[in-house]
């Protein structure tokens, strides 16, 4: 009967193998399975669109000092201003800015700062972390002590020094935030890379005669992406709140170009008066923004975890 034994059968019956699917398609499909996560993504997209379109849809240019008047300060939502007959849907703040416009422009800055600083910090931290993991030994020790140093340097001092050295502005605040955040990424990447480096596929790549730099960046790095994405979304939220705190302490953004955080901390003084709208509306916008980013990150964590993928 052994004679009838077929030659090695080529296993290619389609039913045995899941259909090929691009990884991002699978990601998207997995991601959209959760209703909450989909809503969060939609909300974020909406906020981004609204922020981008701010110059078009905002009733006022809050950055143009000539169009803002202190005489219009603290007008409650929906009431006509003293001079003109325009009405402010969400009221005005203490400087007479239209809250709606200020929130739209503030969103722009907050999202920009959160996203951009997280991305830059991610790039910087990733490179540094990979280098540390790759070279190990002394270089690793030096880099990790620098990371310790960075983590124990208060953000406020860094921000203040940068403010003094470079002046005030969105770009400088961004720079300060990157400097404060890169260490988190470096730590994360290094940790993940050290784990990945032990895996057999790395040995396989060595066995193929590939140089270690290529192994680090082409083979190990992509496998560290999942924890990185999660850190990045968390850090985005954190960056936005950090910027708010920095502005609260007067070392963040220029007074005349408020971010959401600055709007809130300005309105913070009105906690004891009944001018709720000055800090509540930007607060609501910020909370929605940060929660949706966190939910997305949370869900990405689930989706990107191959263990939970079935």
């Amino acid at each position: 009967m052994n004679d009838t034994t077929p030659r090695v059968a080529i296993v290619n019956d389609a039913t045995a193998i899941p259909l090929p699917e691009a990884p991002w398609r699978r990601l998207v499909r997995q991601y959209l399975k959760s209703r909450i996560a989909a809503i969060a993504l939609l909300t974020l997209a909406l906020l981004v669109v609204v922020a981008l379109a701010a110059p078009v849809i905002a009733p006022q240019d809050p950055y143009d000092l000539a169009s803002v008047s202190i005489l219009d300060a603290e007008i409650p939502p929906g009431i006509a201003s003293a001079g003109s007959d325009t009405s402010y849907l969400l009221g005005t703040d203490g400087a007479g800015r239209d809250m709606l416009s200020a929130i739209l422009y503030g969103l722009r800055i907050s999202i920009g700062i959160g996203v951009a600083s997280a991305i830059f910090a991610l790039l910087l931290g990733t490179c540094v972390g990979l280098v540390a993991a790759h070279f190990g030994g002394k270089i690793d020790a030096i880099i990790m002590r620098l990371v310790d140093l960075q983590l124990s340097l208060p953000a406020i001092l860094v921000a203040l020094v940068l403010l003094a050295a470079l002046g005030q502005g969105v770009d400088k605040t961004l720079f300060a935030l990157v400097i404060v955040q890169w260490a988190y990424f470096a730590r994360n990447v290094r940790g993940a890379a050290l784990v990945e480096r032990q895996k057999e596929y790395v040995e396989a790549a060595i066995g193929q005669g590939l140089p270690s730099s290529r192994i680090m960046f082409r083979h190990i790095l992509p496998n560290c992406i999942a924890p990185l994405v999660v850190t990045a979304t968390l850090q985005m939220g954190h960056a936005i709140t950090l910027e708010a705190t920095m502005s609260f302490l007067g070392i963040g953004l220029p007074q005349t170009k408020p971010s959401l955080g600055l709007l809130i901390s300005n309105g913070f003084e009105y906690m004891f008066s009944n001018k709720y709208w000055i800090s509540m509306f930007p607060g609501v916008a910020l909370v929605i923004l940060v929660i949706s980013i966190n939910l997305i990150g949370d869900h990405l964590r689930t989706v990107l975890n191959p263990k939970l993928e079935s």
Partner: protein
Amino acid sequence: MGLLEVKNLVTEFRTPSGTAKAVDHISFSLGAGKVLGIVGESGSGKSVTAYSLMNLVDPPGHIAGGEVWFKGENLRAASKQRWNELRGDRIAMVFQDPMMSLNPVMKIGDQLSETLLIHHRSKRSSAEKIVENALKRVGIPAPVERMRAYPHELSGGMRQRVAIANAIVNQPDLIIADEPTTALDVTIQAQILYEMRCLTRESGTALIWITHDLSVVKDLADDICVMYAGRIVEQGPVDEIIENPRHPYTRGLIDSLPHAGTRGKRLYSIPGSTPPLLSLPAGCAFSPRCTRATSRCNTVPPVFADDARAHRCFHPIDTL
């Protein structure tokens, strides 16, 4: 009636893309002091069967039907509390992976005496004596020292023996061992098999031994069930099955094993691969890979039983 009677046990997994029957109407019985081998490819439902017998199927899985009688008790009707009494005391299990089944932060001795203490009131010192004896029985040298060790300080073989010792401390009536030697070396595997044989003989404990390698259970088991895609395709006394397999799948498993006789020749290998449980072919699940399949195989084959043996195939191999 045997110690354990399983009738038409069904275990399902509810997944987003459908319900998978990982265990599909399996039945067998096992007497005290007997050894049952369950053999099958990866994914054929061996572990799920074991978990079902322990009532440890985790969501999304659940036991969907059938009966399990243990010493005359209907386990399907047992309460949670009853299960907590039974597990570890009357029915014990040894898991597949020795590296993963011991708690890494607890000392060996504590883990073993815990098994004893949660079921029986006794003094710590006397519990430790029992544990020490159990460790000795599974062939661990210097057991008193080992009891103070943590799992990571032991080799894989030792850990697996600790897991086996854990199964025997309460002298259960039934031990379910899920591929306990797959990850081990031949010499260690041989030791464990030897100890298991002694155990069943000496204390009358019944044993279910799960593996994908027929040669491993050959010397140990009294009976064998061959599983494929959640169903038992053939069962019966071990020698008869190995000598005269009736189901083509069993034949394939036997032929796949390399040995001196096949040296230089091509090995037989079952063509194709295990179908996913969610898209099982209608009828005999093995038919797409079977060289003997005919259109008749598209209906589920009945169980053909003659005396102690049974098989599910319309075209059994007739070696006689």
